[in-house]
């Protein structure tokens, strides 16, 4: 299996960064995801919507590697990764955030972001004693990059504070900076607007647009249809683990099957 090179943001839109094919995930006989396929092209921003219990987060976890599919295939940048462990996804250029943010609460904001750095020789036990100069240089470069990312997500003033003091919206921004430290080609954003105040929500949306403009592919789970319509060029709707509709935000929002799935047949 080929090992991916450093993430390149110049892949052709024809080559999907993420290509999930006929994914099925069953939990003790219950199908949370039942035959879903999903493609995310280079530089694309795709919204994934569906009512509660549709299987969006399970699909997300399958793509991120937190769960392994019962059947189906996941290809990332041309590599089949279905059975690989989650820690290898980032090496293929796919990073994720969590629906409920998961900062390292007792570590500082800056240390949280630094943890996202990849390929640090200092993460090897012996390198810290036999190559201290190289470790120090890499660490200094990583600190500079982490500070630039904290500027990008407007958290610079809090860099020495423990992450536990951050608000929900700030934690989402911190997660974004942390995953950007790994320079992923594609980012999976799980409900970035949930529980975030309007001012911070605007900041998050601006940053997501900017990341997409830089060429990063983004897969976005979101209930906020206004946000999905503003950000995404393509939307995939799912319900009961199955695909329901796909198209532009307007097409999907007007689809009777989607309306029925959200309103339970009351429309």
């Amino acid at each position, binding site marked *: 299996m080929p090992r991916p090179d450093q993430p390149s943001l110049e892949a052709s839109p024809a080559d999907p960064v993420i290509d999930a094919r006929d994914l099925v995930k069953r939990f003790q006989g219950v199908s949370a995801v039942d035959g879903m396929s999903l493609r995310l092209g280079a530089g694309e921003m795709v919204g994934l919507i569906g009512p509660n219990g549709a299987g969006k987060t399970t699909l997300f976890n399958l793509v991120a590697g937190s769960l392994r599919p019962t059947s189906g295939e996941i290809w990332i940048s041309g590599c089949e990764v279905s059975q690989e462990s989650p820690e290898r996804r980032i090496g293929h250029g796919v990073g994720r955030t969590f629906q409920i943010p998961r900062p390292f609460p*007792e570590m500082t904001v800056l240390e949280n972001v630094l943890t996202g750095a990849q390929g640090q020789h200092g993460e090897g036990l012996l390198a810290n004693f036999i190559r201290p100069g190289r470790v120090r240089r890499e660490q200094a470069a990583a600190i500079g990059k982490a500070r630039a990312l904290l500027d990008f997500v407007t958290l610079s003033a809090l860099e020495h504070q423990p992450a536990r003091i951050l608000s929900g919206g700030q934690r989402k921004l911190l997660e974004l900076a942390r995953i950007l430290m790994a320079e992923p080609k594609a980012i999976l954003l799980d409900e970035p607007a949930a529980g975030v105040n309007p001012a911070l929500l605007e900041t998050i949306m601006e940053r997501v647009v900017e990341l997409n403009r830089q060429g990063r592919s983004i897969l976005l789970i979101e209930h906020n249809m206004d946000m999905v319509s503003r950000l995404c060029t393509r939307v995939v709707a799912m319900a009961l683990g199955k695909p329901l509709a796909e198209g532009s935000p307007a097409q999907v929002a007007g689809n009777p099957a989607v309306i029925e799935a959200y309103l339970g047949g009351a429309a």
Partner: protein
Amino acid sequence: MSLDLVAYGAFFLTMALTYAVMCLGLNIQWGQTGLFNVGIAAFVAIGAYVSAILTTPDTPDRLGGFDLPIAVGWLGGACAAGVAAWFVGALTIRLRSDYLAIATFGVAVTVQLCVLNLQPLTGGPFGIGFIPRPFNSLAGDPLAFGLANLALMAALVLVLYLALQHLAKSPWGRVLRAIREDEVAAQALGKRPIRFRLQAFTIGGAIMGLAGAAQGHFIGFIAPDNYLPILTFQVWAMLIVGGSGNNRGAILGAIIVWGIWALSAAAVSAFVPPEQQARAAALQIVMIGVGLCLILLLRPRGLVGERRSMLSLGRGRKS
């Protein structure tokens, strides 16, 4: 101040520093990585026995006795305990904290029973005596002997402290803390929790083995009763009192708790009638327990809590 008191002070501090080494080993496992090791006594015992077997003179009724230098014994003890920790870790490191505690407790009981029953190798219940002591040529002068041993242990603790601080501030230490705080999030960032946890468990076990070797050589005699679960309890109390996650706290906690232990023993022999002293010895454990409760109530992060940032950065310095 009499010379006897100084000599006793040196003896007390040397013993406390051997516990400080165990505490530093536990700190890398629990304080930095969140590994709930309740089998400390096992790794201390392995280090002590391996070092004793390597360094004692040939004995007719016991296997081993290689008469090697003390430094080789210490190194051998640390390596043996490290290998044992790696083996135990490889089998148990995937367990959640409470199950890991049960598994490591089982290992400690097993090791203690092994040293108790493997009489041809360990001397069984009689233990191993005549373990060579550092600076034995000074044994005729208790003050010089005590101070020389204190200096040796202080140097060992200092070297370990500096090395562990260097690791704690390194990207390696940062990953350990990230795994301790949230393993799933660390995995999502490409970190391999099993590999890092196993490394921390092995290093911690090796340090505990080194402590066991050093203590055995300082006292000159080891026996299975030295490695009962109470030892594990003592070391845990030391780390919690001093401050989990902080190497300085680990050293401070060892000195304070060993002080309480030694003072309570002295108080029992001074104030309790001889026929009741064996029973009253349990008061030592009660005192440690009460001290532990007070610390948990008044300073839950210990006397010296974990530093907020392990980065060696100047505040506000921008690159």
